[in-house]
């Protein structure tokens, strides 16, 4: 089933960490396996990278802690070697950490080099995008990663009921559009031409972190935008190129977008005001942020909408 949610503040930063936590937690019944956040904090000159070194449900053998420490040091070493100047490296968990750094080169070689470290996966990379995802419900993940004080302009999130791939962090949403900066996607549905698009994008040199069909959407959109299309045009093209049932949300450094397939088979409820746009699989998630009577509506089939911060 899964649940998706998005929020964008149009007049300045808001408490997107706690807001998205409340939205996702209210939809826990739609997916208890994992929860994920893509949060856009204040943009800086620094890059911020979220990395996982292992999955929390892996067997913790005798060498677990020592191995992760060694791999974290190796990431730091490789960042320096490729020309990045590390600012702060902070470990939320022993298997996941956040690092900020200065870097002027291409992102793909950097991400490839980091992911060459055993077990290492770059969850997000950009000037303001931070993807935090882990097993269990949204409240637990938010507490584990201290998201209560996270302020920013826009965010998307996902609660997952695993149906097609494993219950692990790699299968959790949101998906970063590797290797493009500051683009992420959450998706509710199934893509039936996933393998075709995966082969096409792999031939262009992209790699995929998971076996999840949703990851295709992020890379597809980012590639289209890299080819010169606007976000909205890329999303409209996706309605013809992607086959299956889907409602997805996408975030870039300054925008939040939604798209629904031609069958409108997956739900989405939308609330829009001059200050705020909030949308989710169920209205209960929007009410979790706006505790008052509001007017909402369901976007129709083949509808694409984009809002800027």
């Amino acid at each position, binding site marked *: 089933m899964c649940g998706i949610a998005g929020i964008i503040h149009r007049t300045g930063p808001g408490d997107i960490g706690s807001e998205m936590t*409340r939205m996702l*937690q*209210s*939809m*826990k*019944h739609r997916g208890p396996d994992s929860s994920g956040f893509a949060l856009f904090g204040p943009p800086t000159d620094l890059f911020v990278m979220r990395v996982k070194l292992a999955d929390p449900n892996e067997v913790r053998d005798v060498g677990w802690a020592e191995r992760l420490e060694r791999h974290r040091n190796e990431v730091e070493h490789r960042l320096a070697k490729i020309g990045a100047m590390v600012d702060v490296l902070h470990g939320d968990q022993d298997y996941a950490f956040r690092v900020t750094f200065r870097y002027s080169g291409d992102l793909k070689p950097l991400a490839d080099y980091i992911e060459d470290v055993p077990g290492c996966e770059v969850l997000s990379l950009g000037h303001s995008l931070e993807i935090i995802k882990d097993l269990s*419900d949204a*409240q637990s993940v938010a507490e584990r990663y201290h998201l209560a004080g996270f302020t920013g302009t826009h965010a998307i999130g996902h609660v997952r009921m695993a149906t097609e791939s494993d219950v692990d962090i790699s299968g959790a949403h949101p998906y970063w559009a590797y290797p493009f900066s500051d683009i992420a996607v959450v998706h509710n549905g199934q893509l039936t031409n996933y393998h075709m698009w995966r082969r096409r994008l792999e031939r262009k040199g992209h790699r995929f972190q998971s076996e999840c069909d949703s990851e295709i959407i992020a890379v597809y959109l980012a590639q289209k935008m890299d080819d010169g299309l606007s976000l909205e045009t890329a999303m409209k093209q996706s309605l013809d190129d992607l086959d299956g049932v889907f409602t997805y949300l996408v975030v870039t450094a300054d925008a939040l977008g939604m798209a629904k397939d*031609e*069958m*409108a*088979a997956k*739900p989405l*409820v939308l609330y829009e005001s001059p200050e705020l746009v909030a949308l989710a699989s*169920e*209205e*209960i998630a*929007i*009410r*979790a942020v706006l*505790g*008052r*009577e*509001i*007017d*909402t*509506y*369901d976007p*129709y*089939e083949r509808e694409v909408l984009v809002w800027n911060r």
Partner: protein
Amino acid sequence: MEPVKISYDARGLAEPDAQAPGTATISHGPGGATAVFDAAELSIAVGILARCRITINGSLGYFGCGLIDGPEIQVKGRVGWSVAENMMSGVVVIDKNAGSLTGAALRGGDLVVRGDVGARSGIDQKGGTIIVGGNAGTMTGFMLQRGRQIICGNVGGGLGDSMYDGTIYVGGKITSLGVDCVEAGLTPDDDEFLARKLRIYGIEPPGPFRKFVCGRKLWNYDNLEPAERKLVL
């Protein structure tokens, strides 16, 4: 009509750990029961099998007013997906918009949405009447078996796709017809029915309606099928 005693505690119905401010306040009076819901909770006012009046001040989440037999319910807000699913009799009036699958498998009674509805309204509807004051999404009346739908606004693609029987009236524009859905001529009985239903619920007619029914060309209307089945049996 005697008001019946109902009791709700909607707090946390959708999610025990939710921090959403879910509350329900019930008051009883000569006009029936009034309930206030302020967090769009799921599965509210479900399975009521009695004649009574309920007014809901607020909006409902998924599956509101499902499996009811008899009550008159007014929702002074919006409802989520699958409102009045399997409703058997009574009246449900939604003052604002409704999500998709509105009146799924409806068996009887009147379901009125004054605003817009999402996709697949009246999917597998088996009786009763669905009235929509605004627009409807794709596949409206998908697999409609019996009953009627009155859509005053525009409808999306695939109207009446694979419908078996029943009637759909549309007052606005139609994106496309679904498989085996054909247009039929309005009769005086249709005109009288439309005028009466819209008058009851205070909905202004949008102009002339068009009528759509099943073309009966699909395999399930094939005369050979029973014979073939006999051979197999």
